[in-house]
């Protein structure tokens, strides 16, 4: 590993290369394409995947099914990776899934203090705030303060459990099912499930707000 160290020392001498990211990335893509190392059409396909195919709608379907199907909820609890795969959601940054369930007693919230680990297969790409220092530094220390910035206030006695994704497990929060939703079907329920409610920085929407 000794050979890796000089990169650190060089880094700050070249900071001007990053003042215009559009130019920096264009130069990089041009170079790698000329060298035959990347296929620009592959990049288009990757972008299209996360713009149109993989996103929080996937996770919302998982949650709605868990709300309506006790057996599925149980499966999710014991083997989230397989349960989620049964709905067709697999792949990058969703290889090892765990589902954590909010109750009256405990509110779960997910962070990656060390980088930006996030369950892509069910939530898509993480939002900017999830990857930024303010959230990563404070979620583990002052989650209620963070929640307030999302407009969420929990009852004082509710326990708060923060999951720091320090290894390769990826966490999906199953928010509590809102009241007065017994007449809604799975698709209608999925509409109540926000991305933030599956990170634990939000709650599921109430049906009248969604309508």
């Amino acid at each position, binding site marked *: 590993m000794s050979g890796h160290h000089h990169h650190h020392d060089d880094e*700050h001498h070249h900071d001007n290369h990053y003042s215009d990211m559009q130019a920096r990335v264009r130069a990089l893509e041009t170079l790698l394409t000329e060298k035959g190392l990347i296929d620009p059409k*592959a990049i288009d396909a990757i972008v299209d995947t996360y713009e149109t195919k993989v996103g929080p709608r996937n996770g919302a379907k998982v949650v709605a099914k868990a709300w309506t199907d006790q057996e599925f909820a149980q499966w999710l609890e014991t083997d989230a990776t397989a349960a989620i795969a049964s709905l067709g959601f697999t792949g990058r940054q969703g290889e*090892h899934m765990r589902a954590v369930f909010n109750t009256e007693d405990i509110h779960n919230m997910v962070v990656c203090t060390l980088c930006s680990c996030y369950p892509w297969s069910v939530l898509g790409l993480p939002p900017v705030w999830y990857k930024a220092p303010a959230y990563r530094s404070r979620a583990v220390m*002052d989650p209620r303060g963070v929640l307030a910035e999302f407009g969420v206030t929990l009852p004082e006695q509710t326990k708060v*459990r923060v999951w720091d994704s320090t290894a390769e497990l990826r966490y999906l929060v199953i928010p509590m099912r809102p009241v007065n939703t017994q007449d809604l079907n799975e698709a209608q329920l999925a509409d109540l499930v926000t991305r933030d409610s599956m990170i634990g920085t939000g709650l599921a929407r109430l049906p009248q707000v969604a309508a």
Partner: protein
Amino acid sequence: MNGPHDLGGQMGFGAVAPEKDEPIFHAEWEKRALGITLSCGAFGAWNIDESRHARENIQPANYLAASYYEIWIRGIDMLLERHGFATRNELFSGHHQHQGAAPKRILTVDRVAEVLAKGGPCDRVVETDPRFAVGQRVRTRNFNPSTHTRLPRYARGKIGVIDAVQGGFVFADDNAHGRGENPQWVYTVVFDGVEIWGEGADPTLSISIDAWESYLEPV
């Protein structure tokens, strides 16, 4: 390493700023940065742990000022140079000057769906039995390696309880440095907020990390 990335419990970054109706990308270059990062990762020249460590080695002032896609591009620049795919001159001029290393694989458009759907599982068989059991009290080690680790500073030398035995996984601390996968058992360890933050900690708070077995000692 105790790098700029290890942010848990640091102060002074201000309020979290959730953006209403946040777009998936904020600029065209972010799309290309994502695609370049994944395409270069598909070479098979480095693993996810080495790429995380490259990002951790960004000079702290730069790291903290950068957007996350900028962090990725700075990391990719380091990795491409380290593994001989491009020289520093080439990287920053954008002009092809040398042949450079040949990757094992190139991600072509026809393989994207398959590669993304497959991902990169890193669970592995561990031959030994788990050393710790659910409910057992453990102390995290107190160390400060200059190399890659996934034990955050705030959780070092702390007493917690094994919440789950999650399985065997590639050991990031070794894998980042080409020392092999050396899989270990990974445990979810839960700590009281007071154990971590001491006086004034939120009494309702508990925090868990996922810890490789060698991070832990029996209490």
